[in-house]
C-alpha cells in the first residue's frame, strides 16, 4: 500500500560528525514533505520542509534533499550535537490528500560523545 517509510530504525554518530537520515515514499502524488524531530516525552517539532518543485533546501545546520525520481528524501544534520539525539520522522502531504500528514516510522538518532 501507499506508505512513507524510513530505511534505518537507529543511527549512531559521533559528536561533530554529519548525520544523514533517509526516508522513502511510494506515492508519486506526494508533493510536500516535512521533517520532524521528536524528543522523549515531547511532540513532533518542525525542523524543515520542502515542496516537490525543489530538490534541496537548507536551514540552520540542516539540509533536506528530495529525489523525486527514486521517491527518496534525506535529512542531513551538520556537526551533530548531543542535543540532536531524538527520533526523526519524515511526513508527507499529497495532492488531493487534504490536510492529512502521513508519517514514516521514525529513525532514532544517537549522538555519542
Amino acid at each position, binding site marked *: 500500500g501507499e506508505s512513507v517509510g524510513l530505511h534505518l530504525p537507529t543511527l549512531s554518530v559521533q559528536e561533530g560528525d554529519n548525520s544523514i537520515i533517509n526516508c522513502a515514499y511510494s506515492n508519486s502524488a506526494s*508533493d*510536500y514533505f*516535512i521533517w*520532524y524531530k521528536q524528543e522523549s*516525552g*515531547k*511532540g*513532533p*517539532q*518542525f525542523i524543515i*520542509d520542502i515542496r516537490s518543485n525543489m530538490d534541496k533546501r537548507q536551514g540552520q545546520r540542516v539540509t533536506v534533499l528530495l529525489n523525486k525520481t527514486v521517491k527518496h528524501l534525506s535529512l542531513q544534520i551538520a556537526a551533530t550535537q548531543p542535543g540532536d539525539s531524538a527520533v526523526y*520522522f519524515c*511526513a508527507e*502531504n*499529497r*495532492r488531493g*490528500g*487534504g*490536510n*492529512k*500528514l*502521513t*508519517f*514514516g*516510522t*521514525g529513525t532514532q538518532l544517537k549522538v555519542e560523545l
Partner: protein
Amino acid sequence: EPEVTQTPSHQVTQMGQEVILRCVPISNHLYFYWYRQILGQKVEFLVSFYNNEISEKSEIFDDQFSVERPDGSNFTLKIRSTKLEDSAMYFCASSESEGSNQPQHFGDGTRLSIL
C-alpha cells in the same frame, strides 16, 4: 515563539468512561488537527478541522470520537466511551493555512491511559 499547548499531560481513565482532551492552538492558525501515537509506533492522523467543521477524518475517527472548538481559543477531542486500545499519546497540531502549504506545529501531547 508561539506554541500549541495541551492539557492534561497525562489522563488516566477507566474503560467505558468519557474523556476530553484539550488543546490551545497557535493563535493566528486556522487549521487544527488531532493525531495519535501508540507507544513505539508512528504518528497517525485522526481528524482535521477548519472553519468550525471537520474537513477530513481517518478510519480511526469513528462515532466514539468528536471534536469541538467551543470558543475562540480551545480545540477539544472527546472520546465518548473509551476502550483499552485508545491508550496512546494524542497530539494536537495547528497550521496557518492548509496542510499542503504550511507545516503543522504540534503540542507535546496528552498521554491517555485506559484501565
